């Protein structure tokens, strides 16, 4: 797969601002254009990552953001793919660029979130797994995160202290991030003293829901060169694959896993598939990574990712963590941005924010959270109904 260039990045700081999501997206877009030294009137295509929590303007995000910046007659596409929405919007922009439909595009996602648990759409919908799991079981998102966490404790001997240590690490990283929502450094006692939400996970270990916005200006390598940008950060791989049947892990929001009675193998899971496709597209292997931005929906969830992206064998993630390998200054820092632990989740903006962090890291502009000499980064996430994504950036 050919690469495209990332010319500019921008973010609206994460928080619980309670304002119109369009403001966040517009601010992020303007910052990305300024960073890229590209005029809004030069953008030929806007790829929007939709919000399902901000009414109709959220469903037509590309048009909404283009309107906020001023309608210029550029091409638009709006898409939704749960947590993978931002990477999906980027993949559409890449396809437009590589097929020659456009040279330069803007990718934007933003959201304003309600307080508390994410809830399904209203109505009596007996065929909707998302509705059924709340109504019949009271299974919230943290229910699933906790089931995975407990499974790690049983299978691999991970402890509550290991999970807390993930949060401690990410909070140390987040201190250095001006766009993070939580910039307090937590210690293990803070976490142990926070209320239990879904045993064994406590409040400080579960990703909050946040407001935020993020944007990218991307172009063909030729267009970048024509602007004098000869060594841009490149998008080298994007994965937006579906799960492969049978996936033995019970995924959000289903009441049951796939059955592997007929098909046998339980070793490959959805999370493995997402990473594998990104590595393949980018012709990169786990040993090549200098850092990773992974979706720490819970503290324990980050450990799952170490294994699924190939940083270690299945079951060895806590060893990496305990050795300090995944902290800034370690062998392979994970979530130098502070991750979702420091940000919370603003769904359509989050995968784009992960790419923003990769760009700052690969340009050497990440300040106190800089991974020295970073050349290759991977971001990855995983959402509801079999949507997940991964992006590999190189320079």
């Amino acid at each position: 797969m050919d690469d495209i260039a990332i010319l500019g990045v921008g973010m609206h700081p994460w928080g619980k601002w309670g304002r119109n999501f369009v403001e966040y997206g517009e601010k992020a877009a303007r910052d990305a254009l300024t960073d890229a030294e590209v005029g809004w009137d030069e953008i030929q295509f806007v790829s929007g990552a939709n919000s399902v929590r901000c009414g109709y303007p959220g469903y037509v995000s590309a048009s909404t953001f283009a309107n906020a910046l001023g309608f210029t007659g550029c091409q638009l596409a709006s898409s939704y793919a749960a947590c993978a929405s931002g990477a999906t919007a980027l993949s559409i922009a890449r396809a437009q660029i590589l097929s020659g439909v456009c040279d330069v595009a803007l990718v934007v996602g933003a959201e304003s979130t309600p307080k508390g648990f994410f809830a399904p759409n209203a109505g009596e919908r007996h065929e909707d797994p998302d509705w059924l799991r709340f109504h019949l079981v009271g299974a919230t998102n943290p229910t699933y995160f906790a089931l995975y966490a407990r499974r790690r404790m049983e299978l691999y001997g991970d402890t509550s202290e290991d999970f807390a240590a993930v949060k401690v690490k990410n909070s140390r990283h987040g201190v250095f991030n001006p766009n993070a929502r939580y910039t307090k450094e937590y210690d293990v006692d803070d976490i142990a003293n926070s209320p239990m939400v879904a045993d064994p996970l406590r409040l400080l270990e579960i990703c909050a829901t946040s407001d935020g916005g993020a944007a990218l200006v991307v172009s063909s390598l030729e267009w970048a060169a024509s602007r004098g940008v000869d060594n841009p950060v490149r998008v080298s791989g994007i994965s937006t694959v579906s799960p492969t049947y049978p996936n033995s892990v019970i995924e959000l929001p289903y009441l049951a896993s796939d059955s592997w009675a007929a098909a046998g193998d339980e070793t490959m899971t959805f999370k493995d598939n997402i990473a594998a496709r990104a590595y393949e597209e980018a012709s990169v292997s786990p040993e090549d990574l200098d850092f990773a931005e992974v979706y720490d929906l819970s503290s324990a969830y980050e450990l799952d990712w170490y294994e699924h992206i190939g940083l270690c064998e299945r079951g060895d993630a806590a060893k990496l963590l305990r050795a300090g390998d995944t902290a800034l200054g370690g062998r392979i820092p994970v979530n130098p941005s502070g991750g979702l632990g420091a940000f919370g989740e603003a769904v359509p903006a989050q995968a784009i924010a992960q790419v923003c962090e990769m760009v700052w890291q690969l340009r050497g502009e990440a300040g106190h959270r800089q991974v020295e000499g970073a050349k290759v980064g991977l971001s990855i996430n995983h959402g509801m109904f079999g949507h997940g994504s991964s992006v590999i950036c190189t320079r």
Partner: protein
Amino acid sequence: MAAVEGLFTLDSDEPRLIGGRARSRGSYFFPKSLAGSDPACLGDEIEEVLLSRTGELWSYTTGEYAPPAPYVIPGDEFEPYVVAAVRLAEENLVVLGQVVEGVSVEDLSVGMEMELVIDVLYSDEEHDYLVWKWAPVGTSENGEQ
């Protein structure tokens, strides 16, 4: 009455989940309406089957805070509950469900034998709305040994 029709039987002694099975491929689904995730089942006939009543505890957790609607808080005040994911013996399907009242996480361990029971999810003036729940084998519905 069932809180949602068509997902489980109301047989008080031997309640079962109602799933789907691809006739020639042999893969199982729950609920039956989700049949189709196995690409090898394309065109296969999906028959309705009653799933195993017992299985191994795959994982478990608690709900310490009240979930949003459409969860209905039974009674006047929210009480924390336990959720289990149980791997059905025959079908190798991991199925979620609440655990019967009176069983705490301290009573559970991964791998233990669990069985399906029918219990009240919530009530209004006219009906008890019923659902499947998981109970450690040998535990009665009200959680007493």
